């Protein structure tokens, strides 16, 4: 889908609607300003008219947005607004939920990830995910990082590989170091790579999960509230890391902390109850002068 097509599609969706504000007054909201927002750079992921149902529950309603590459896009909104559902659509994690049905298109570098024949393992390698609670495997730090590349066959260490000379321990070491370095964890764990990962602190475990995600060389990293279980110091490290990663990767992060969205993201999408994307724009614009009164009320804490 080209940028032009996207803009036209959205212009068709532009319409005024009456909405109630917290003060009870009804205001006309026009979505013309933001629906044509195309992000700050080349589009990595383009979402068009995405609807998600969980059985009879309409979790996402006609969401369209372009996510630019090598930047941080924050998804914010109250609980149940559909932001995590939206995130999971970006690497088809919702396929794992039997009752979920997804309509619309999501293209990654121009290819529709929902078309028939898409290799889901390959897709999730390109679009990695980091979850709210750190979930390292109960294995060594080294094995946590090399697990993905081994599974994908990027490094071979098994008996057959060793016997046939395909095993390359040096390559594995380099990949582990590189991934831990990139996740800002190398200096803290370099002397104990064979220790069990569960012995790390929460913040270290989360950075290990990010290193594990980076080890398979993704294009996009999806993060679902990656710092909500961490203390302020560990949160700062994750936030620094998110900004750093955006130099090379496309990062999409769901967060309940509006200050975190304001601090780390380049653009922010605000979802409100009912699975509706209400406003999507540069983060400065959202937090300084949003178009929508409902977004203004939400980010100002006038309802939640």
């Amino acid at each position: 889908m080209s940028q032009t097509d996207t803009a036209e599609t959205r212009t068709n969706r532009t319409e005024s609607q009456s909405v109630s504000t917290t003060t009870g007054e009804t205001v006309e909201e026009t979505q013309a300003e933001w629906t044509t927002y195309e992000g700050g750079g080349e589009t990595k992921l383009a979402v068009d008219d995405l609807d998600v149902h969980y059985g009879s529950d309409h979790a996402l309603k006609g969401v369209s947005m372009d996510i630019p590459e090598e930047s941080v896009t924050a998804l914010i909104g109250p609980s149940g607004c559909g932001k995590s559902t939206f995130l999971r659509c970006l690497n088809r994690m919702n396929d794992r939920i039997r009752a979920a049905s997804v309509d619309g298109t999501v293209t990654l570098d121009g290819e529709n990830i929902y078309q028939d024949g898409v290799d889901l393992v390959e897709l999730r390698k390109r679009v990695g995910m980091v979850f709210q609670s750190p979930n390292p495997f109960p294995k060594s730090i080294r094995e946590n990082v090399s697990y993905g590349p081994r599974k994908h066959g990027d490094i071979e260490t098994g008996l057959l590989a060793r016997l046939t000379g395909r095993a390359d321990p040096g390559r594995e070491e380099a990949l582990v170091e590189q991934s831990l370095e990139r996740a800002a964890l190398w200096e803290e764990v370099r002397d104990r790579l064979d220790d069990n990962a569960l012995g790390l602190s929460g913040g270290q475990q989360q950075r290990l999960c990010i290193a594990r995600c980076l080890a398979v060389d993704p294009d996009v990293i999806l993060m679902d509230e990656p710092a909500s279980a961490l203390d302020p110091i560990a949160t700062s490290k994750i936030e620094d890391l998110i900004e750093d990663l955006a130099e090379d990767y496309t990062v999409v992060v769901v967060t309940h902390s509006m200050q975190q969205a304001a601090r780390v993201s380049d653009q922010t999408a605000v979802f409100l109850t009912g699975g509706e994307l209400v406003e999507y724009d540069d983060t400065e614009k959202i937090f300084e002068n949003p178009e929508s009164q409902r977004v203004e009320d939400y980010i100002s804490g006038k309802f939640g």
Partner: protein
Amino acid sequence: MIAVPREDYRASLDDLRANVESMAEDVLKQLQHALDALDGDDHTLARTVIDGDDHINQQYLDLESDCVDLIALQQPVASDLRFVVASFKILTDLERIADLATNLARYALADISAIVSDVRIQEIGETAVEQVRAAVDAYVAGDADACRAIAGHDDELDTSCQTASEAVVRELIASDPDGWEIEQRLDGVSRLLLTIRDLERVGDHAVNIAARTLYMDEGSPELIY
């Protein structure tokens, strides 16, 4: 949606608006008293204005601190953020207007009124006071149209000030004073020219207040320069 009013925070924002308005009233009083002191060569009133500047300065520091607290502790966003940031800037303009009122009071102690008959300081002063009054009203009401009108009226004040300054210089030249007379008159003429310039600057601060109010109201930087 469940309403979460953040009552203390909303009350803090309301308090800030009321306190900035209250400081503005005090500043306007200082300015008017300074003009009255100039008009009537009232040294007692002039000294009251000069002494009153400490109170204005204290209000300025207290309210600036309130703005910093709101930003640090409540993390306002969107229109709340623009309101706090605009108020923070407007406080500086109000404090500067009070400083200029103090200057005017000092000139009043030196009796400049009799120096040049042609210059209508009171008329210029009234226009400057009206501009500040209008800017403060626009801030309190969040009136964007009034902000643009204030910016437009500033040209009239500038023209009046330029005309007055030229009149002072012309009169000085026309009086063709001798050497010792020039020395005697120069202090008075300088003070008169400074009075005119200070009133013109009061008008500029009124425009600044309007500019920040427009930013607060519409997010538009169009009057900020």
